[in-house]
Every structure is written in structure tokens, then in C-alpha cells.
């Protein structure tokens, strides 16, 4: 969703200025070499893929560095680097609490408390995908099919956005036809996902994760060097706080108090930061199928322990750098007079970006930093998009081929071929959706998917790992309540989605049912998750447990 509006103008901002020092031929050569490296790693994955265990779980023997970098690269998309980095440029360093949640919950908590048990239980249940894991845990073919259907229906929407955004980016930086860029981008990603399977995906993700961490760390170091050091830069930004009320009255009304301060308590921006970003994005990552499946790719908990170290550093240096640079860009644009394009000097970042936060990071790089950082950042953005896209394609294809087709037709045996066909089908659907559907519908569909995923899957997933008393009926109740309350909230309560979807206005004549502050700004996750959890607990207590023998097998 973000990429359609983000990568194209970002690339234009990076490329457009002839004084930026960026040479299209050099960048083209770098991208070509990079693609060759990706092709080689994809081919290596293909050569090492023998059966469905290799294709779906990389043989359950992945190196911890590869696993951690793949997890991080799939986790962190371009929207985190450019989109949220731009939000930090507009609203400040309060967004660093999201970084804390990403590391504490998304890496440390996930790997230690979810990863170990997922790996062990997945092995005991012979599960190769997230739907199969849940279906086998609760002895429910229907649950397996239902979860696979949710993935199949909603993930292509998200994939289409990332795919189209990546193609637009290539179109802008390489000055090529959009259709050609779309074809090349789709074919490159399709090649290593279809043929390499999860081995190919994770090898490539490890390369891309390395590029991402080097690129973002370089960006942060150069930013502090440009602005005179850490304390100097922070103090300069703090001293700009009075400009918020003077130059950004709308943001001030939303709660903005300065770029080195948290927003005003109980303001619109405070609720958005805490409920949607910190809680929704920070905790919601635990239930993402494309991330959970990676826990089952390592051969022991030793690899997971090692991956905690690598993953923590990765998240801090990628998204942490993006948000700090975004906020600090205000200092550069406002104070620095040397080498700035006309009209930018003396402005705040959001003003310099013409009101579009997605342009803040690319403009800062273009204006403030040497061309080599531009090249590195272009590769970083491409890596972020491709790594997220490949993980989405793989999990969608697995859902279609391994989970849906095999269970609906009751075919057994190796599922590599059918999963490959599922991946091809998923890619084709994503491309078609991206071309046919308007961006607004894609954006809304993606928001629905993430909101539904987190509230619906998380209680059941956590209970599957820790509570023997969870029943099949309890899981169905939890998922139903999670889906139902999330959808109700998105269509009728949370202003950002309900206003755009329009159903509430069509039925009741207003954009949301409860207009009293802060309810229009409280993320659906805040109430749908507790209700989903309550349904799980109550119904599980009232219904028959799973056989003891099966539970002993799951928890051995």
C-alpha cells in the first residue's frame, strides 16, 4: 500500500536532480551485478532442493545467520525504512519505541518464547507450513484449509503492492518502461522463489539483509558526521521544537511537541503511535505466517539462540537508523546552507518534501550525502522490497499448493511440484491484482489483512504452543471473534479505514460509529485481541479437550 505512493516518488526524488551525482549507468551496472548474485543464490537453492521438506522448510537445517537475516529482511520492508522513516521526519523520535517493540517482541520474545516451541512442535507434527502446523496441532483439516484460504485471499493484495512498487522504483531509477520493469522484477523474484524454494529465498534474503544493514548503518553514520556529532545533532533538533507550533499547526494540534519529544499524552498522534504502531505493528508481527514458518527451518534451538544476537542487531541498525535519520533530516534542511537545491534551505523536512513524508529520506540522501550512499540506498530499498516479496510469494504458494490443493483433493506424497505451481499462480494473481485493482482498494485490503491476522491468529498460536487445555472449538471461537471484531472495527470504528471503505457512511451517514475521542483513533487490535483471547479461554474451558496421547505427542 505504502509502496505505490512511496517508491515511485522516492526514486524520482533520488534520481531527478542532475546535481545529485548519481549516474544511471553505474547504478544500472550495480543492479545488474546484484541481480546476477541473486540469480546465483537462487540457483544454489534450486540445486539443493530435493523434496517438500527442502522446498517448504529449507531442509530444517538453515544456518542461524541466514535464518536471522532472512527473518529480519522479510520483516522489514521498504515501508519501514522509507515510509516510517518519513513519519519520523514529520513527527520525531517517539517512533523509536516501535524499534524497541520490534526488537523486544519481534526478535527476542519471538525467538525465545515462540521459536523454540514452534520448531519442536512443528517437527513432532511434521508440519511444513503455518496452516499445517495449526491444523495438525488441533487435528482439524478444516482449520488448515481456513487459514490457508485467509492467506490465499489476502496476501496477494499485499504482494501486489510490493511488486508494483518495486517495478515503479526500477522504472524511475533506470528510466525504463514500466511494463518492462514489472516483467523483470516479477521474473527475477519468481525465478528464485519458484525454483529455489525456501532455500533460495533464505539465501537471497541473507544477501539482501546484509546490504540493508550496511546501507542503513552507513546512512546513520554519515548523517551524524554531516550534522556535527550525536549530541550536537540532537540538541539542534531539540532547539527547533518551537517551530512546530509556528510552522506545523496541524501537526501541533495532533499532539506534536517537537522531534525529540513524545507526542502529547492522549492526543491523536499519541494514540496512533501507541495503539497502531507500537502495539499493532510491534505485537502483530508475532502472528505473521511468513515469519513463523522460519522458526521451523533450523535444526536446533542452538541456532535460534544465535539468531537472537544477529536479529537484534539487524533491527536496531536498519529501522533504528531510518527513524533517527528521518527525524534528524529536519536539522539539515533547516540549518545547512551548503549544496542544497533551491527552495529547500530553511524548511522543515515535511515542508521540503512538499507534504509527502515518503520523500523525506530520499531527499535527505540526495541533498546531504555523497553519491555512493545513493547507490547503496537504492540497492537497500530494492533489497527490502524483494526480500519481503519473496517471503509473501513463498507462503502464498505454499498455502495454495501444499495446504489448499492437497487437502481439498486429499492427495498425499511430495508436494514440491504442486507448491511450485501454487507459487506461480500466486505471483500471477498478484501481478493481475496490481494492474486491475485501484490502489485504494489494495491499500485497504492490506490493512484488513494485517489487522485480522494479528487478532485472529496470535491467541490461538500462543495457546497452541503453551496450553494443553486449548480445544479445537476454542480455536475456532477465537479466530471467529478475532476476524469478526477486527472487520467490524475496520469498517465501522477506526476512522482511517472506515472513512475510506465508506460502508459506515452509506449505512449510518457518518465516517465512524463512535465519534467520541479517542475511539476513532484507537487501533482495532487493542480490543479485538483481548476479545479473541477471551473467546479462546472461555470456549476451551467449556468444550472437550484433545486426546491425551495427541497432546503428549505435541508437547514431547
Amino acid at each position, binding site marked *: 500500500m505504502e509502496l505505490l505512493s512511496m517508491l515511485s516518488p522516492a526514486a524520482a526524488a533520488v534520481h531527478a536532480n542532475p546535481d545529485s551525482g548519481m549516474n544511471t549507468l553505474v547504478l544500472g551496472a550495480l543492479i545488474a551485478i546484484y541481480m546476477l548474485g541473486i540469480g546465483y543464490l537462487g540457483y544454489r537453492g534450486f540445486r539443493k532442493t530435493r523434496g517438500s521438506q527442502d522446498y517448504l522448510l529449507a531442509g530444517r537445517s538453515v544456518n542461524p545467520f541466514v535464518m536471522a537475516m532472512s527473518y529480519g529482511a522479510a520483516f522489514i520492508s521498504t515501508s519501514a525504512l522509507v515510509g516510517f522513516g518519513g513519519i519520523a521526519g514529520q513527527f520525531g523520535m517517539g517512533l523509536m519505541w516501535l524499534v524497541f517493540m520490534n526488537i523486544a517482541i519481534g526478535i*527476542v520474545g519471538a525467538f525465545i518464547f515462540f521459536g523454540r516451541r514452534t520448531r519442536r512442535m512443528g517437527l513432532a507434527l511434521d508440519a511444513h507450513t503455518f496452516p499445517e502446523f495449526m491444523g495438525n496441532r488441533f487435528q482439524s483439516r478444516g482449520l488448515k484449509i481456513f487459514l490457508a484460504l485467509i492467506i490465499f485471499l489476502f496476501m496477494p493484495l499485499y504482494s501486489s503492492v510490493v511488486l508494483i512498487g518495486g517495478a515503479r522504483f526500477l522504472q524511475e531509477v533506470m528510466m525504463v518502461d514500466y511494463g518492462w520493469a514489472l516483467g523483470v522484477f516479477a521474473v527475477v523474484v519468481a525465478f528464485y522463489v519458484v525454483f529455489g524454494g525456501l532455500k533460495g529465498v533464505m539465501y537471497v534474503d541473507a544477501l539482501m539483509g546484509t546490504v540493508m544493514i550496511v546501507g542503513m548503518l552507513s546512512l546513520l553514520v554519515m548523517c551524524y558526521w554531516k550534522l556535527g556529532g550525536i549530541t550536537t545533532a540532537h540538541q539542534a533538533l531539540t532547539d527547533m521544537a518551537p517551530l512546530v507550533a509556528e510552522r506545523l499547526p496541524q501537526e501541533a494540534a495532533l499532539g506534536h511537541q517537537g522531534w525529540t519529544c513524545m507526542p502529547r499524552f492522549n492526543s491523536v498522534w499519541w494514540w496512533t503511535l501507541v495503539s497502531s504502531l507500537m502495539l499493532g505493528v510491534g505485537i502483530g508481527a508475532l502472528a505473521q505466517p511468513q515469519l513463523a514458518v522460519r522458526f521451523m527451518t533450523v535444526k536446533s534451538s*542452538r541456532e535460534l539462540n544465535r539468531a*537472537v544476537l544477529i536479529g537484534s542487531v539487524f533491527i536496531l541498525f536498519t529501522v533504528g537508523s531510518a527513524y533517527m535519520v528521518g527525524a534528524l533530516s529536519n536539522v539539515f534542511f533547516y540549518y545547512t546552507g551548503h549544496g542544497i537545491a533551491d527552495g529547500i534551505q530553511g524548511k522543515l523536512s515535511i515542508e521540503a518534501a512538499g507534504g509527502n513524508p515518503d520523500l523525506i529520506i530520499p531527499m535527505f540522501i540526495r541533498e546531504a550525502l555523497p553519491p555512493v550512499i545513493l547507490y547503496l540506498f537504492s540497492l537497500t530499498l530494492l533489497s527490502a522490497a524483494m526480500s519481503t516479496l519473496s517471503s509473501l510469494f513463498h507462503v502464498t504458494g505454499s498455502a495454495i499448493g501444499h495446504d489448499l490443493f492437497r487437502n481439498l483433493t486429499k492427495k498425499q506424497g511430495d508436494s514440491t511440484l504442486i507448491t511450485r505451481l501454487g507459487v506461480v499462480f500466486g505471483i500471477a494473481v498478484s501481478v493481475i491484482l496490481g494492474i486491475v485493482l485501484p490502489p485504494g482498494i489494495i491499500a485497504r485490503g492490506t490493512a484488513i489483512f494485517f489487522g485480522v491476522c494479528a487478532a485472529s491468529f496470535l491467541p490461538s498460536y500462543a495457546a497452541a504452543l503453551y496450553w494443553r487445555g486449548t480445544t479445537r472449538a476454542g480455536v475456532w471461537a477465537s479466530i471467529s471473534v478475532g476476524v469478526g471484531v477486527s472487520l467490524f472495527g475496520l469498517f465501522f470504528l477506526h476512522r482511517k479505514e472506515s472513512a475510506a471503505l465508506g460502508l459506515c457512511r452509506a449505512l449510518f451517514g457518518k465516517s465512524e460509529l463512535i465519534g467520541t475521542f479517542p475511539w476513532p483513533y484507537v487501533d482495532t487490535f487493542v480490543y479485538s485481541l483481548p476479545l479473541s483471547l477471551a473467546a479462546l479461554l472461555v470456549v476451551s474451558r467449556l468444550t472437550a479437550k484433545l486426546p491425551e496421547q495427541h497432546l503428549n505427542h505435541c508437547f514431547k
Partner: protein
Amino acid sequence: MLGLGDGQTAAALIACIGITVIGVIYGAVNWNSGDSDGEVRRRKRRRAAARRRRKKKKHNR
């Protein structure tokens, strides 16, 4: 602190660095710990063999 505007933002930065350090220390300390499935199976077999030996001794008495 560090030129930042309020304690909450400083706390955010410190918390980010702190949790990363915790993750690094955890990973480093547990770098070689954690069982592979082969080790778990071997340990279970050793325990089962020890239990059988104890039972046999008890029976022989």
C-alpha cells in the same frame, strides 16, 4: 540527556540499545547451548537405560 528533548524519548533510545545488548548477551551466552533433536533423543535413551538398570537392580535384590 544526549541533547534530547524529554525523558521519554531518551528512554526510548536507551531501551532500544538496552534490549539489543540483552539480545546480544543472550545470544553470546547461549551460543552453544540448546538441544538438537539428536541430542534430545540420545539423552532420553540414556535416561531410559538408567531407569531400566535401576529397575533390574531392585528386582534382583
